[in-house]
């Protein structure tokens, strides 16, 4: 089960698609002005990514290497089209707020990237877990930034007006760039600190062990 733990940690933290790999930036910047649309986009990506990972992993032995990219694109485009129909029918609010970015999930580097880097080399369950975790990493990051941008940019949270004070610029692309940039900086800084602390601790234990052996 250690394998799945690693996939989970990778998806959420160490290879977080938004903060660490900086993939799928277009929908991120375009939609974090509202927490609702950011979370909606994240969850849509979770579903599409998981399904595409499962399908591609299942078909990895069937699809010849030469035409794998076109095949992946067709599979992803099919899933996106399906997601678009589904959302338009059942969640029209979300469909409207995602706008053009819904169709652009096809060219979201995260999905094609995971297909190419993970799904076509791993078994179906692993690919599924990877899809969910990478998607959740994306969702959490987007929702977090969505909350920040919406709270300061519109004075509301998930559409609920909280205060009159607002910095409209933060709800515009300019603010999205700023918040995204600063979030990456903070995230990498924190991860860096944790890693360093762990390394120091590991070194200390190693030295103690060495001393004990010598003694």
């Amino acid at each position: 089960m250690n394998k799945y733990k690693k996939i989970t940690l990778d998806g959420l933290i160490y290879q977080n698609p938004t903060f660490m790999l900086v993939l799928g930036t277009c929908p991120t910047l375009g939609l974090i002005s509202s927490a609702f649309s950011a979370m909606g986009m994240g969850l849509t990506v979770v579903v599409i990514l998981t399904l595409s990972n499962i399908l591609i992993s299942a078909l990895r032995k069937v699809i010849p290497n030469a035409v794998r990219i076109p095949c992946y694109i067709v599979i992803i485009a099919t899933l996106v089209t399906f997601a678009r129909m589904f959302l338009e029918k059942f969640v029209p609010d979300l469909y409207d707020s995602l706008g053009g970015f819904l169709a652009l999930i096809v060219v979201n580097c995260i999905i094609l990237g995971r297909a190419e880097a993970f799904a076509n080399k791993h078994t179906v369950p692993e690919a599924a877990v990877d899809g969910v975790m990478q998607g959740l990493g994306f969702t959490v990051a987007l929702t977090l930034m969505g909350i920040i941008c919406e709270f300061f940019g519109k004075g509301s949270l998930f559409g609920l007006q909280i205060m009159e004070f607002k910095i409209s610029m933060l709800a515009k692309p300019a603010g999205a760039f700023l918040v995204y940039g600063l979030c990456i900086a903070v995230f990498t800084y924190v991860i860096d600190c944790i890693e360093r602390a762990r390394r120091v601790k590991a070194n200390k234990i190693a030295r103690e062990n060495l001393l004990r052996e010598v003694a």
Partner: protein
Amino acid sequence: MTVKGFFKSNVFKCLVTLLCVLLVSGIFLTIMNGLLAISDEERFARAISKIYGKSVATTPVAVADYNTNATIEEAYKVEDGNYLVKSTGKGGYENGTVTCWVVVEYKNGAVCGIGKVVIDSNKNQSYIDRVGEKALNQFSELYSSEVNEKGYTEDMITNATVKGTKTAICNAVNGALDYVNNAFGKVRALGERFLEEIQKAYGENVISVYGTDETGAEKLITKEDETVTGFKVDEKHGNATVTEYYKLKYNDGEKDILHYLISSTGNGGYQDGTVTCRVTIAIVGGKPTTIYNAAITGNVGQSYINDIKHMGNYSNVDITADGFEFAPAGDFLTSGATKSSTAIVNAVNGAVSYIKTVKFETSEPEEPEEGEGEDSGNDSDENGEGGNA
């Protein structure tokens, strides 16, 4: 490469795989498209419900322009009786326009309010975002019969600092009002609307209402009447002015009961405004006995008049006691509209005080009834006459 070789080659395998994937995707999506297709009606209903706030059935109605400052684009009759009008107002910033969806509330053949104003689109109004929901809500808050006649002026709408844009929005709303007023408001004669309004309080029972003709003589009001006038009074009673009354004969299934419908305008409302009420008083045995009900028919400057929820307190109240008067508004206040309620109490007290000065002919069939005054403050179909001497 031989034909056989081609079929065994990698190229063929690639082609087949790709085509298969494409075919499966195409079939899957075609099925899904069939299952999840959204009909035009559904799309339209969705758009309407977004504007209206809830999903409603609508029927389109013919549009026409009655106001030079606005163009009516589309109009729908909503199932609850209101009209939904898409109106484009002119005269915005840089000669631009603003298109609004206006919910015009419509009852008994007349416009009775503005439900909601939603901005649909605009031309050249770069500050349209500054017109918030607060500003737009004022259209429904400030609605009065006077506004209905003369339209909104831009000074009335605060909170929207953009002058030109505000003008265009006001024009759009006024255009919608004019359209509904002209296209649907005057179709029915005043008499019919008047009777219908009164009929409501009496349920299915037969009523006949008497007013006056041009000469001031008593006359039965019919549905065909173009004008409706009551018996002139114009007397001051306490803090109210009683302007006119109608006589009404109400059949409770056995016999006729005489009711007086007194129009009384109470002073002391919000910002020195007034509220006009129609107070219905039952006359039994030549004496006013009970208030059957009281209804608000008009007001000046009472923006919270729609919040008044205690008109039921004036139903079925015994007024035979000497010097009977309703207690000040505070006693049964259920809303925050203190001032408006004061004006209502004044109006009702004025009507009561007036009716006691009237001398009734005793030619009415006299037969004091043994009724129990158990109905406590509710609009009920029965005429609860309680406590005769």
